[in-house]
């Protein structure tokens, strides 16, 4: 077993060179390079964390803006609906008023026409009566040769007309 057989001859060389090369490894690589590698890792982790935080903040801001937009949109819609409703009401009121006026005018015209019709009928009836009286007088005079006074004839005509 050379590890033991050569121990006396080689231990000092083994220890010396191990200390030299492990020392180089420790001081150059371990102390010099490894912290830089780890620093890079830490930097990257920090960067990732910061990016994630920024993304989260941006998303929150976007959500907030969307919420604000939604509120504003709802307000606008409500306002628009109110305007539409008001316009509708106004239009309805206006047309109702117009209709009412037209109705009134029509009613008035109708009433006037009816009055006129009634007057005309009365006048016509009166005329018919007087014509009938005169006709009755003439008929009686011609047929019977009796002269009937106007009031008597009128009375007879009225009676006849009342009986239809």
């Amino acid at each position, binding site marked *: 077993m050379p590890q033991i057989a050569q121990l006396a001859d*080689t231990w000092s060389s*083994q220890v010396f060179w*191990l200390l030299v090369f492990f020392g180089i490894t420790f001081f150059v690589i371990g102390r010099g390079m*490894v912290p830089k590698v780890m620093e*890079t*890792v830490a930097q*990257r982790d920090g960067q990732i964390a910061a990016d994630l935080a920024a993304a989260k903040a941006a998303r929150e801001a976007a959500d907030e803006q969307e919420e604000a937009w939604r509120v504003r949109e709802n307000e606008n819609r409500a306002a628009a609906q109110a305007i539409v409703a008001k316009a509708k009401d106004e239009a309805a009121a206006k047309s109702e008023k117009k209709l009412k006026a037209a109705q009134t005018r029509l009613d008035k015209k109708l009433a006037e026409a009816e009055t006129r019709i009634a007057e005309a009928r009365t006048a016509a009836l009166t005329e018919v009566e007087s014509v009938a009286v005169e006709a009755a007088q003439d008929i009686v005079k011609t047929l019977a040769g009796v002269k009937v006074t106007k009031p008597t004839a009128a009375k007879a005509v009225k009676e006849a007309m009342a009986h239809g």
Partner: protein
Amino acid sequence: MAADQAKVDPMKQFAIEPIAGTQGWEIAGLNIAFTNSAMWMLITTVVLFLFVLGGMRRELVPGRWQMMVETFTGFIDNMLEANIGKEGRKYVPYVFSLFMFILIANLIGLLPLGLVGIHPFTFTSHFTVTGVLAIISFSIVLIVGFWKHGLHFFSLFVPHGTPLPMVPVIAPIEFISFMVRPFSLALRLFVAMMAGHVLLKVLSSFVIDGTNAGIGFGALVGLPSFLLMIGISALEILVAGIQAYVFALLTSLYINDAENLH
């Protein structure tokens, strides 16, 4: 005598050989020859350096290589944070170096580079090496423990809620189990790596000797051994990762004892 020459010595792979011309190097009377073991430590260091260098592009959107390096640092970082807590992060450089150094050493030692004439040397299969690493980890535990808690650190040997009469019995046991830690740490890695490599070498000697003995032995012994080697090689890759992980995990658990004294 061709069969004798073809025999595989399963221990030869662990032999340390100074690279030509460096046998005489000394510091304060101690030999520091630049050996094949040191050579593979150098290669491990360079490979690890290049690997981490590829992850240093510091791009915000990482490429595959950078992702891989960051996965390893993140893995060690998570392990330390899970075992020690927030203060654990300052040990990332050490535990990362330890884990990657052992992992790459284990994996490079398994590469079939012998096919092209280069013989990989798994220096983690030497307890001189794993011992030094374990002693470094253990020293960190002691230094941090006494630095942060002073003499109060000795209360580590009295688990929380021990009844007073039990303390004289429990404390020595705890002390022994504490002192065994560096040995268990070093021996576990050393034994696991060595056992795997010996097993592979023994099986390869079956393949070679069986095939040399004739077609019948080759089919009966060589072929099954070869299939077994393929499976065990896969297992060894797993072991290489697991042992590096265990070493790093136990180090972080021991540091946790020192950091957060119960």
